């Protein structure tokens, strides 16, 4: 919302502070200011002058040689004996006696001011010196018209400063529109001026025409038959119109042209400018129709405006020339036979006011804000009218505005009133009524919520300054304010709204600051956050890099990894196919980032992410929303050169990271790995297994609960995502880890007696798992001493001879320290013999 400092000044009864100070207060008490533009600089040196003589230049088909009277104001310019200045002008409308805007040498063409400033001089045209130039509206940055020079109407003296005369020594203050989402009244100068008065503690004086509606239809001409019908009262709370005859369509007076141009509105003609002027003044959009065109469409002797919803298949050519089929259910304005306007959004071309228009219909209406917004979005039409209508303008002000605007038009165009004021709708004020809602609120209620003790009189005057009526009463010692909400306000319904109003007009930043007090009870920690911190610390300490990737993925990624699109939540309005589906697991997103990092020159790295996955099966939580799976995913990758430092499968590198992590969480002993078997999974969980190579992957178990998967990736996945051959990773369920996590690690007292260590090497058939061997050895060693010794079993070597592929040799180191005595080698050897015998029996193992 652009406002003009000078225009606001016209409506307040006190002198506005300097613009900088004003802008600060607007920001603090009305809404954020986006920009302040000083437009006065543009018009420095422009002088109102009269053309005293004008004759064609020989040898030219359009140039005229003029002498102008600038009141002798311009300095350093060549003058004739009468003190007049010679200017050559090519405009078709240049003529003797005209008052014009003269840009003397040394001044800058206003329209070029912001871009590439063009400074005028005295130069020769066809042998005649032209001192500066006589400006067109376009050169003055007032409008688009470059057909001729600006003709200044009204009683002005040559030599008058153009900017001062038309109050162009002005600032334009642009307040962010979103600040006024609930303040349709502030989309008008009147509304903003009222707030500024209130902010500075001054009562705002409403213009007479706005405060009270008075019908004044003079001068009255012959009637133009007109009727209106409101067939959509639920969407059109009020529809008003009247007819004017004998309008003279021409440019508006320079005063209004410059006024509109200050706030960025292009002047068009006196009728369209009048609708814009009142829209900017009050926030209420207006529309003018060519009466005769409207009537001709029905071929009737009466013109009809109907507000209704569209019927199927109706078409409309808009003012911008585009033909559209208005969305079904949109509000339109129609004659008896056809649609002539997309209500509240854009008028139609067929009934447009043009230079030949003689009679007009002026309409002022209120349309449902949501319907207008929808129509605007569906058709991609955004206009100043839409900006205002979709905030929900008050229907109660239509009568005031249609009256004031039509009187203005009559004055500016010589038109006569040619109908009564027609008014169809449900919402209008009774005679003498000025408020539309009443809210009662206790002074305590206000004070408690603002944290400041207000006097009743202070609160009442803050409110009364901006048009609320306030009565105070004393209910058992409780002071209560009874507030009447003025008809232009649509946002005050409950006591809290009044609290906001009082706080804002007083100044929120003036309220005393005070921290809430609380008991010393500690804030409850969130264990999931604690776990995640621990995982981050552990993994980053292990040289891994935490990444964040999007929650949404491309369907192609599912295809590449073999996940079912139907099991993913999919967006109906995704920005692009890249972001169409909620991901079903995190690992694919990480794999998707491997190649770029390899290419960026990173030989080996581990990426991890803590995030959420979603599976679109029908299971919903108690409050009706989908289950969210909290996951940890890690991927280790090494290019062929870096991979050389690792022997064997990449799987073991991922497993090492996993075991390190589990050990940090104190749960290494509770977790088991077994070869990945999809059959063990429920349908919804199968998505987690599809990326893994069937013979290079494992399920991570805790008891009979699956807590994750680990492995290398299928060659199809590797190929699709350009993964290096040495690449593996895991994905774990964080809720499961949270359940298992030991906050206190298991500690064992240190034995006083020395530690004895011996190695055992068992040759077992290749398919026998390491786990089976380890469990047997560790189990027997632990059992042999029970609580009387500290026993640890750790792997030393797994070996296989080239010529002996059916068997492998596993070497474990057993280390024992007793709490009671020094152990002898003999008894430990005996234990190892027992273990070997048992292993031979149950695992077909042979001691080596």
């Amino acid at each position, binding site marked *: 919302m652009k406002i003009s400092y000078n225009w606001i000044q016209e409506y307040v009864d006190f002198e506005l502070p300097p613009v900088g100070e004003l802008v600060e207060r607007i*920001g603090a008490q009305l*809404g*954020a200011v986006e920009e302040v533009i000083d437009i006065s600089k543009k018009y420095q040196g422009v002088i109102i002058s009269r053309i005293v003589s004008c004759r064609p230049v020989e040898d030219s088909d359009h140039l005229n040689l003029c002498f102008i009277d600038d009141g002798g104001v311009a300095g350093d310019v060549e003058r004739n004996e009468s003190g007049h200045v010679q200017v050559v002008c090519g405009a078709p409308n240049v003529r003797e006696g005209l008052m014009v805007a003269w840009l003397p040498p040394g001044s800058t063409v206003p329209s070029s001011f912001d871009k590439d400033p063009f400074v005028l001089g005295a130069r020769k045209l066809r042998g005649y010196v032209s001192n500066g130039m006589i400006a067109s509206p376009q050169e003055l940055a007032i409008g688009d018209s470059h057909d001729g020079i600006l003709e200044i109407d009204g009683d002005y003296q040559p030599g008058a400063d153009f900017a001062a005369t038309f109050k162009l020594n002005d600032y334009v203050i642009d307040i962010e529109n979103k*600040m006024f989402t*609930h303040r349709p009244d502030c989309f008008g100068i009147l509304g903003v001026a009222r707030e500024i008065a209130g902010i500075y503690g001054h009562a705002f004086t409403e213009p007479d025409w706005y405060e009270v509606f008075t019908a004044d239809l003079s001068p009255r001409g012959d009637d133009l038959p007109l009727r209106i019908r409101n067939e959509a009262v639920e969407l059109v709370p009020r529809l008003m119109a009247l007819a004017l005859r004998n309008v003279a369509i021409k440019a508006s007076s320079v005063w209004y042209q410059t006024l509109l141009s200050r706030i960025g509105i292009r002047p068009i003609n006196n009728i369209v400018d009048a609708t814009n002027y009142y829209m900017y003044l009050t926030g209420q959009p207006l529309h003018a129709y060519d009466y005769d065109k409207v009537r001709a469409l029905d071929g009737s002797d009466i013109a009809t405006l109907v507000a209704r919803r569209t019927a199927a298949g109706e078409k409309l050519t808009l003012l911008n020339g585009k033909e559209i089929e208005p969305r079904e259910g949109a509000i339109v304005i129609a004659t008896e036979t056809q649609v002539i306007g997309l209500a509240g959004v854009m008028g139609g071309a067929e009934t447009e006011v043009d230079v030949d228009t003689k009679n007009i219909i002026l309409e002022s209406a209120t349309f449902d804000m*949501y319907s207008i*917004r929808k129509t605007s979005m569906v058709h991609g039409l955004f206009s100043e009218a839409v900006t205002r209508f979709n905030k929900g303008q008050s229907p109660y002000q239509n009568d005031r505005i249609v009256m004031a605007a039509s009187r203005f038009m009559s004055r500016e165009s010589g038109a006569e009133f040619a109908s009564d004021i027609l008014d169809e709708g449900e919402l209008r004020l009774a005679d003498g009524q000025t408020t539309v809602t009443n809210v009662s609120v206790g002074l305590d209620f206000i004070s*408690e919520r*603002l944290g400041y003790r207000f006097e009743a009189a202070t609160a009442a005057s803050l409110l009364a300054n901006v048009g609320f009526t306030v009565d105070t009463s004393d209910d058992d010692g409780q002071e209560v304010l009874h507030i009447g909400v003025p008809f232009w306000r649509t946002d005050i319904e409950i006591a809290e709204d009044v609290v906001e109003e009082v706080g*804002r007009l007083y100044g*929120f*930043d003036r309220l005393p*600051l005070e*921290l*809430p007090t*609380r008991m010393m009870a500690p*804030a409850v920690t*969130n264990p*999931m956050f604690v776990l995640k911190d621990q995982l*981050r610390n552990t*993994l*980053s300490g*292990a*040289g891994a*890099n*935490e990444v964040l*990737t999007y*929650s*949404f993925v491309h369907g192609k990624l599912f295809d590449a990894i073999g996940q079912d699109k139907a099991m993913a*939540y999919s967006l*109906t*309005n995704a920005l692009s196919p890249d972001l169409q589906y909620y991901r079903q697991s995190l690992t694919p997103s*990480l794999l998707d*980032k491997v190649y770029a990092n390899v290419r960026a020159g990173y030989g*080996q*790295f581990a*990426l991890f992410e803590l995030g*959420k996955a*979603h599976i679109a099966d029908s299971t919903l939580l108690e*409050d*009706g*929303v989908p289950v969210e799976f909290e996951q940890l995913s890690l991927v280790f990758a090494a290019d062929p050169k870096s991979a050389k430092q690792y*022997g*064997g*499968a990449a*799987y*073991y590198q991922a497993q*090492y*990271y996993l*075991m390190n992590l589990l050990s940090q969480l104190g749960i290494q002993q509770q977790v088991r790995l*077994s*070869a*990945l078997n999809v059959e063990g999974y429920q349908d919804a969980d199968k998505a987690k297994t599809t990326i893994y190579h069937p013979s*290079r992957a494992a399920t991570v178990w805790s008891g009979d609960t699956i807590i994750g998967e680990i492995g290398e990736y299928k060659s199809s996945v590797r190929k699709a995502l350009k993964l290096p051959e040495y690449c593996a990773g895991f994905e774990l369920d964080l809720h499961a880890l949270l359940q298992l996590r030991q906050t206190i690690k298991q500690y064992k007292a240190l034995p006083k007696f020395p530690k004895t260590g011996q190695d055992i090497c068992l040759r077992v058939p290749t398919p026998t*798992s*390491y*786990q089976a061997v380890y469990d047997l050895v560790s189990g027997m060693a632990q059992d042999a001493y029970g609580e009387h010794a500290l026993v640890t079993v750790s792997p030393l070597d*797994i*070996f296989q001879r080239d010529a002996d592929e059916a068997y*492998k040799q596993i070497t474990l180191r057993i280390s024992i320290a007793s709490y009671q005595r020094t152990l002898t080698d003999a008894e430990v050897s005996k234990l190892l013999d027992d273990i070997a015998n048992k292993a031979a029996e149950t695992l077909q193992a042979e001691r080596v």
Partner: protein
Amino acid sequence: MNYQFPTIAETADTLSKRLENLDNKADILRAVELKALYDELRILPNDQKAAFGAEVNALRNSLQEQVESHQENEQALTPIDVTAPFDINSTIEDRPRLLPAEQGSIHPLMTELKSILDIFYRMGFTAVESREIDDDYHMFGALNFHENHPARDDYDTFMTKQTDANGKPFIAPAHTSSMQHRILKGYKNLLENDMPIAAVIPGRVFRNEDLDARHEHTFYQVEGVYVGRGVHVGNLIATLKTFLQEYYQKELEVKTQPFYFPFTEPSFEFALSCPFCDKAGCNICSQSGWIELLGCGMIHPNVLREAGVDPELYTGFAWGFGVERLVMMKYGIEDIRHFESAKLDFLRQFA
């Protein structure tokens, strides 16, 4: 698959047998018999071309699949023991090990989030993570959004094809305020015991917004909720000011600007004096001396009521701010897209 054309069925049979004995399985795709079928296709009458072509393609695809499946199995030729700590015949030198600790890094957004949550913990706020998929009720209905509010149409908010029990699409939350109702409802028993509800809610949110150096469709917010007896606007401003001073470890000035949110009344935009230049004006604050940081306000009585909290007895405030901006200002990060890029060039700078 049963092939209708005898020549195709015959070829399929031949090739399938040959495949078993091939050393390089991919050679089967270059078999002359297969090529012959394509040659035959070219000279067929037009009315048979489509059906024949479809079958030849089906055969080729089937062979391709078999080749790929063989390749998959080929790699499985070296079965591994998934329970072992390292591979067979690996030496002490080439066994698995962790990468050097100095290369590791925590994501800068998560580091920042932790330091933010730590301050709020100390101030008495519990942390709860927000959801990444929610429903219309929590996103709008419980937050006093009008049934026809523009945010509810799909121009601004991501919605899913799948629908909730009311037939409305699920929603990718555009703000962490979608958690307010759950927090109020979940902790309202505290109020009955004369304790305030105090929670911060970090989480990922989504906006239907085109990507550029300053705009992301995915970003992180921290929501805050504080409700108790006699909580007022002065408390709100003081709480946020105190947090920011602790976060920046310096005295700051703060100011509010009136704003509009459906779920707070009054609503504000909250700005702080630029901590990087102390209001002198710098690039970070666009020479204004102020940084607009967050949206906040007093929780709307309808929002409290909807969660079963009596707005006559209790009042409270809420706020929400983005995390990316804090981190970008702190380090001078030039492009918001780096955060979700997973580029090690970016991440390892935070090692």
